[in-house]
């Protein structure tokens, strides 16, 4: 079965620092990849997704992610974080079964110090 690993449990950065959150999935083939974000007290929202084509995907609020097939990775990046980026970030991939459900990583909590 597919699995998703997020390497960092909690990341603490100062404003304007660069961000990279790691995400690896267990096996390849055709795969769609997602990053979701959960701001404090809010519901999970789609941040960006890779479906096909350009492996560098741009999402909302200046986030981007790069799909590297050879490394089974889909790392999330942002050149300069803001205090408002404080949230929990989840990487997700389809389970590959018949149900079309997504498998989520355990999440990375990002705290940005003003």
């Amino acid at each position: 079965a597919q699995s998703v690993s997020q390497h960092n449990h909690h990341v603490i950065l100062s404003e304007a620092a660069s961000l990279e959150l790691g995400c690896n999935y267990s096996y390849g083939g055709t795969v769609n990849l997602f990053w979701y974000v959960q701001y404090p007290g809010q519901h999970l929202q789609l941040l960006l997704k890779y479906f096909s084509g350009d492996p560098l995907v741009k999402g909302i609020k200046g986030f981007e992610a790069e799909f590297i097939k050879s490394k089974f990775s889909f790392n999330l990046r942002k050149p300069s974080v803001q205090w408002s980026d404080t949230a929990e970030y989840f990487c997700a991939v389809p389970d590959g079964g018949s149900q079309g459900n997504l498998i989520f990583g355990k999440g990375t909590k990002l705290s940005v110090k003003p």
Partner: protein
Amino acid sequence: GAGVSQSPSNKVTEKGKDVELRCDPISGHTALYWYRQSLGQGLEFLIYFQGNSAPDKSGLPSDRFSAERTGGSVSTLTIQRTQQEDSAVYLCASSLAFAATNYGYTFGSGTRLTVV
């Protein structure tokens, strides 16, 4: 509706009692998913509905958990004889049929269940 609606938003229950959680998906979304989010554990997939059918219930953590969906719309997740380990946020998501693998889901705000 405009989004996925879940109720109640918070539920505190005594151990051993039954609880019922409700999810109202986006209108026209035929696929509906339940997840459980526990602290530090990420999102655990529970069950999926396509229309009123749930073809695979193996994700439900025990036979105390059941779910149904009527009219291809509202779904209820029922937990019988609640235990403290059932405490978590229960999330519902919906999507167009089989679109989740391409486009992702829309999530509700969740029900925070606390068993005391």
